[in-house]
């Protein structure tokens, strides 16, 4: 009997380079103690991490993107 040891269960595919980069930047901003939406969006923009359209994030575009990626 082979035992089930599957590290990745929350998504069928691994994260894309874009997702990893964005996630890393989010962690970096959170790590400074900034935990509110406006501060997070500003922090991402300050780091030069743009939205997929190349535009700076706004609270709306960021929350839309997160809603899509949280599923």
């Amino acid at each position, binding site marked *: 009997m082979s035992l089930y040891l599957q590290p990745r269960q929350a998504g069928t595919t691994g994260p894309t380079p874009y997702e990893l980069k964005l*996630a890393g930047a989010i962690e970096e901003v959170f790590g400074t103690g900034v935990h509110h939406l406006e501060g997070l969006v500003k922090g991402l923009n300050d780091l030069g991490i743009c939205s997929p359209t190349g535009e700076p994030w706004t609270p709306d575009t960021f929350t839309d993107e997160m809603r899509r990626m949280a599923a």
Partner: protein
Amino acid sequence: MVNRLNKTALTSDEIFATGMRNQWHAVCPSDFVARGDMKKVRRLGEDWLLFRQSDGSLRMLADRCPHRGAPLSQGQHLGDRVACKYHGVQVDVGGTVVSVPGMPGCNLEGKRLVTSLPVREVAGAVLAWFGTDPDAEPGPLDLPERLVDDGISRFLCYAEWKAPWRFTLENLLDPMHGAFLHRESHSMFGGETSAKFRIRETDRGFFFEKTDQRGVNFDWVEFCRTGVDWVDLEIPYPPTAGPGGSFGIVGMGTPIDAETTAVFFWRYRRVEGWERDVWRFLYRTKLEERHWAVLEQDRVMLEAMAADADQAENLYQHDLGVIRLRRLYRSQAAAQAEALAGA
């Protein structure tokens, strides 16, 4: 352990080794069995067939053909029945023989000869009632609120460990190991490495908790018996995990057999709106991998422990939770064996 047919002969030691009867146990993640599919699992030392019909409903049958005992799991899914591969006998989802193709009119037809367990699907997992009397109604199932509360976001992590089920539960009733075994982890590096503990009774079980530290490491655990046995605990995240505070775990451990355990960890966080979405995104991209690394520390330790590790211990105050759990299961196993012997 061999497939067992007659449960009435179970001894106290056998029950202690393969799990408590007359309660619900988590079986596997729901997505292990697709629509129109079936899957074999071993739980509590016996083999079972999970069978999902095309309407999505799930059934669980003993994996043993009533004719000559071949595994039904090797047979064919016929929508609302399974046909045994050996001689074609057909058993419906309730366990009744509906056709003996080689011998039409055979007196097996119409008889309910295969055990069928009541199942429920909860928070992405299959739960089943393992009763000693196949004809008795299942007992009530009171679900952990963490698994049903809409204000809580959760992911199920499932794994199978080559360790006795009691070791996996005792590990959860042992919060102090967080500060040592998991010191090199993303979430359990903080807090004192010495502590005092106490047991606090609740109407569904008990808390085992540090008296002098809370919210720094793995500092408390609640053990609950609500038709299914589960633990609840909380562990702080570092600031990089964003708003929402600690993450929690609802844990269950179901014996596969005496040596192997199916472990279920629902990692949850009280987050809504964009905070929920960001947590879920971070979980998928970053956190899941780190949580897994912590779980592997537990697995490696428990799998390396001798099967009789608990026969030569020198326990101290931190082990009160473990002692309490072990006594509870020991006496329940004895009571169940006695009831079975008298039945």
